[in-house]
């Protein structure tokens, strides 16, 4: 049997080479004094596990419930501290995405030793059924050590407390120098094994070095530093104008924008050149709220070339609120005029469409990726995007 899954910090094997320590060890009978002291220190460590919550999704709710009256984590001395400096246990509760992971690692590194990590729920343990998706980290133990895994989707508050009790058990076992890991049974984990090795593995993938993680965080940091200082002028609130009826809009589109087709089941197609002007006109008519900007990718077929469609919808605010929507068709290499100057709310939405679909918005003040890390390759909502496209270090 190969000891593939080593304990992450084997304290028994740590070389204590300080001369003072050696001298002290040679004093006979010293252990009579140190053993109770050590027991006291372990007791303190075990019984005051303060939680630093890393709650990103539904498991976080159970974490809150565990601190509430029914289960009451305070009974075992566990309180929740919001700063990593005062936490002992990081409870990762929720799906960790590729963009989130460097932050989680950063916060983990900010916690003072001795520290532990609990992976709460399937998403934190293995990425759950999102684990093959492009943005999801297949288990937090791919980039940081995990001490206790609490199964469940989500685990209930009692299970979290059980996990903390297990952690106490583990702290005690480690102090006594006992191995706390399961016997490795090859093949068991191949079932859901992520494609990269884990931190505790001897066979760990070199692609998952700390240096690389550092790179990723550096990248995002740089990304923040480059934030554009240009201020997008906010559009003037239009209060007087009253939203028009759909006939009027139809007439407007037909007369001024040359739209001839009004399909029953879709928004009318507006030409690429007229689109920004239309947004202005509609805003002046009282359609002051931008509901969405959605881009869709249509891959090349036998008859049609590859193309994009960007759909917009506006709402008039008021008692008789109405919605008007339109589409713009783009060829594969065409760009579309940004409407950020008309609707400030389009800023992030257009960035999101650029990020995920890859449509370029002409005149956008700050067209960068918004959801994915800056070094991501490709646009995942394109139909031709391969789900397992490599993204270091996780895929």
């Amino acid at each position: 049997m190969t000891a593939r899954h080593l304990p992450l910090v084997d304290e028994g094997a740590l070389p204590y080479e300080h001369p003072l320590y050696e001298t002290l060890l040679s004093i006979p009978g010293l252990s009579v004094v140190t053993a109770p002291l050590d027991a006291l220190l372990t007791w303190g460590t075990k019984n005051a596990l303060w939680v630093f919550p890393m709650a990103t999704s539904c498991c976080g709710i159970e974490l809150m419930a565990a601190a509430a009256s029914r289960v009451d984590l305070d009974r075992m001395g566990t309180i929740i501290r919001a700063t990593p400096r005062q936490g002992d246990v990081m409870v990762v509760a929720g799906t960790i995405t590729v963009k989130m992971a460097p932050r989680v690692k950063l916060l983990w590194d900010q916690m003072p030793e001795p520290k532990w990590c609990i992976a709460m729920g399937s998403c934190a343990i293995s990425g759950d059924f999102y684990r093959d998706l492009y943005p999801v980290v297949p288990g937090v133990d791919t980039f940081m050590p995990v001490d206790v895994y609490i199964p469940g989707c989500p685990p209930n508050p009692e299970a979290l407390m059980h996990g903390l009790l297990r952690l106490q058990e583990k702290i005690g076992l480690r102090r006594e120098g006992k191995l706390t890991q399961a016997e490795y049974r090859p093949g068991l984990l191949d079932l859901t094994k992520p494609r990269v090795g884990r931190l505790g593995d001897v066979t760990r993938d070199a692609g998952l070095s700390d240096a690389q993680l550092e790179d990723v965080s550096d990248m995002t940091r740089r990304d923040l530093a480059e934030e554009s200082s240009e201020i997008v002028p906010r559009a003037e609130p239009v209060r007087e104008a009253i939203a028009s009826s759909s006939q009027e809009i139809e007439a407007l589109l037909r007369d001024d924008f040359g739209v001839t087709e009004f399909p029953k089941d879709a928004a009318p197609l507006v030409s690429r050149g007229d689109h920004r002007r239309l947004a202005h006109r509609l805003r002046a008519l009282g359609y002051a709220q931008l509901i969405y900007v959605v881009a869709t990718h249509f891959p090349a077929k036998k008859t049609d070339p590859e193309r994009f469609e960007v759909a917009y919808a506006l709402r008039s605010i008021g008692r008789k609120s109405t919605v008007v929507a339109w589409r713009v068709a783009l060829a594969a290499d065409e760009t579309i005029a940004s409407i950020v100057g008309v609707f400030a709310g389009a800023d992030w939405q257009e960035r999101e469409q650029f990020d995920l679909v890859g449509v370029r918005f002409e005149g956008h003040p700050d067209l960068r990726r918004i959801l994915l890390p800056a070094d991501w390759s490709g646009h995942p909502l394109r139909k031709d995007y391969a789900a397992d496209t490599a993204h270091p270090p996780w895929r």
Partner: protein
Amino acid sequence: MNELVHGALYGTLIATAILSTIAMGIWFERKFAGRMQQRLGPTIVGPAGLLQPFADIIKLLQKEDIVPRDADRGLFDLAPILAVVCSLGVAAVIPFSPSIIASDLDVGVLWVLGIGGLMVIPTFAAGWGSNNKFALLGAMRAIAQSVSYGVPLVLAVLVPVVLSGSLSISGIVAWQAQHHWFAVWPIVPGLPAFVIFFLAMLAESNRIPFDIPEAESELVAGITTEYTGAKFTLFYMAEYVHTLVGSALGAALFFGGWDGPFAPGLHWMVLKTLTLFVLIYWVRWSLLRFRADQLMRLCWTWLTPIGVALLLVSAAWVTFGGTN
């Protein structure tokens, strides 16, 4: 020289007593808070969770000491020590019985106000020295807050000074023992002055509803955001010491200190102090936090004018109404 020995002896005793009381105070607070939320509070560590504060402290002392790279090392290290020193220093002039007092200063009230006012310096040093934006925001809030609560605090404390005609706290207590407790009689300047004092003291010891510098939901952990292990323990202790000493001060200034029938003075002083201490925690776990501007408005537009009025009333009382 004799006085020096006396001071050192009693000072050590009082400091030890306070520090061991706050260990129990932490336990009590957690139990009390738990019961107020229909929880149990600590139950597992020790009988009824009594050993929980000790476990906390043992754990905290074992934690790694992290100093942020760009922190102002000197201030960062100095702040927690200063906080404990300032909060314990106030206790030096509080009489716990006619004889148990570390130093019976002639100007005890000034000492209390001065040292209490110094608390803003460790807070500021911690916030600024951490090189952390949340800590810095906490420090800025602490200073703005201290400018606001300082004036009503001084005005409220001056009421017993004027009524008793003494600046020494043991003198004030002795006066009350001979006449009436100030919270009871004369009730008009006495009781409102105590309320103002209580509010200002909550603000000074950063307790809810005025824990604006620490505001956990906004500022992560406020000024203590970057503190780990032992240094955080000091801050944690200083907070409780400050609250306890503040309660003792309130008991001495407005509730007659060690004065009381049947039992020796120390019993009464401890009882009164702990009652105020419990009151503070009751308030802490019941109310919401004020916004910084709300606190300032409260202090400047309500407490300060009322304090001035009370001071005038008490001066008039002394001039026209006699002393009892």
